[in-house]
């Protein structure tokens, strides 16, 4: 295990490399989910990363600029920056593992990052857990969490603003405080106007795991994802573990992913 900073001097990123840098059978860059979900899932994804490392896969967990231990403040975080950071992470891991297959893993918003990054940087495989397919409604959800928190902590009558007020602030070029995170107008712009789910997986193999309640979201995926030959969609029975701070491990997600990776990387049924 190697913990270190990497990336450009003005955009220092924090990363943890789990597993053998030499002799690894593959590499996997973990794209973290967003905001509090990065925190609620941190220990559990770290655990899974260490398990993958034990199975011979070198895993790089990194923190996008403005988040976690990386440089910058959260106000510096936006989608374009996170995509650039993911590409930087891929280059770093590629340097570590050489010509071995290299893939991207992402949970929730991290799934969006992984799928988007694959458009820009070559990835051999994609592994996505309950990815956020549409950023605009996701942002709305995040804005509503502030309203919910205010309604819980204050009397509902004292909550004098709405999600529309926050949107108006963004449109006017102001940042908005969502439960201690400073959302910049650039982040708002990227989430609502600039980025959408890619038309195709852009990797030779892709596995998208989701919960049954996410079927409507998955049904809206472009055709290449649902009927194409490279992507496989599978339902997992796990709870939405990113919603709470418990340490209950997402065993269904992990088991399905591990067997798919073994099949993809080892048995050659899906030659990478």
């Amino acid at each position, binding site marked *: *295990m190697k*913990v*270190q900073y990497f990336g450009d001097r003005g955009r220092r990123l924090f990363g*943890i490399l789990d597993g053998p840098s030499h002799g690894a059978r593959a590499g996997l860059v973990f794209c973290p989910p967003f*905001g*509090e979900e990065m*925190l609620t899932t*941190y*220990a559990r994804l*770290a*655990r899974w990363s*260490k*398990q993958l490392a034990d199975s011979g896969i070198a895993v790089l967990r990194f923190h996008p600029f403005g*988040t*976690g*231990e990386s440089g910058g*403040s*959260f106000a510096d975080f936006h989608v374009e920056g996170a995509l650039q950071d993911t590409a930087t992470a891929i280059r770093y891991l590629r340097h570590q593992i050489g010509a071995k297959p290299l893939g991207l893993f992402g949970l929730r918003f991290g799934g969006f990052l992984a799928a988007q990054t694959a458009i820009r940087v070559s990835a051999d495989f994609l592994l996505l857990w309950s990815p956020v397919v549409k950023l605009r409604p996701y942002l709305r959800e995040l804005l509503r969490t502030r309203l919910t*928190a205010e309604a819980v*902590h*204050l009397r509902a009558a004292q909550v004098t603003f709405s999600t529309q007020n926050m949107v108006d602030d963004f449109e006017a070029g102001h940042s908005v*405080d969502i*439960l*201690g*995170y*400073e959302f910049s107008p650039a982040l708002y712009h990227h989430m609502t106007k600039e980025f959408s789910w890619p038309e195709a997986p852009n990797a030779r193999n892709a596995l998208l795991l989701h919960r049954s309640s996410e079927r409507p979201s998955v049904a809206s995926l472009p055709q290449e994802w649902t009927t194409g030959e490279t992507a496989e969609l599978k339902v997992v029975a796990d709870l939405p573990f990113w919603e*709470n*701070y*418990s*340490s*209950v491990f997402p065993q269904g997600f992990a088991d399905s992913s591990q067997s798919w990776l073994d099949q993809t990387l080892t048995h050659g049924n899906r030659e990478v």
Partner: protein
Amino acid sequence: MTELVNIPVDSWMLHGIVHCPGLSSGKRVGVVVYHENYNTKFGTHRLFRVLSDRLASAGFYVLRYDDRGMCDSPGIHDLTIADRLADARAAAKFFREVYKLDVVIGWGLCLGATLALHTSASPDPHEQLDALVLCSILADPGIVSLPQFGYERVEVSKLAHEFFLRGNLLRKLLNAPRSFKFWIQKLEVIARRHLQGTPKELGRMKATIGRVGGLLAAYDGPCLMIFGEKDSYLTDFTERVNPGDRLKLKEKPNPPEWVLIEDGDHTFSSREKTEQLFQATLNWLERLPSREQSAVANIASNFQAEQPSAAAD
């Protein structure tokens, strides 16, 4: 400037990050930040990371770390409360010795505050903390839960109150099929608790939390307690742990100071509340009494001079 460190404890290694101060000072004062349950060292809304940057820019050394086998520390481990306590003591000792600190202060949130208080009571002087900042302290064993054992906190009395006393009972019975899943889930949890009994680890954790009142009463060093006004842990503390100053904290020669952050929640989750939390911490460090005063006062006043526009309230 930050340095990545490895802290040895038992047969484990803890990954830590030390924030080194930009300002030079006569004495070397460190702050160990203790995070809450099943969390990592940067914390909710990056609270601990930003706090550490601020403290370092004010002249303090700051250490944050991950527990054994968790997050960025090597290995995989099912963490117990005893492990946490051992890790907390090891972190304080490592920090004092390796960074040659004159004063080590513990700053903790929720369970982290509980750990800081326990660490201050260590029999080893190298592990002890010279002062404490306890935020949203977890002091009531009655609210401890262990979700990793499926031990969700479900209070039968509250459920009964919810069902029988709130709203129209007849309407609830008519609507029961719609809320069937919710009630079944709660009943499952209750049944599981009664069938399995209390997990031993939960008992140990409750015992550890249960000692907080006694430790607070016995602690004679400088202490600042911070709560958010809207945090349920505040009422847990004032009504169940220390009702009517049962612990006689006010009668102590060196009573804990209190800061109540208006409209603040458990984790001070807005930039305004976070800023108030930081200011409360720094203002107190500036006034830190007794033997720590000379070491900390110079540093804190440097900070105040650097942050003229930061508003406390």
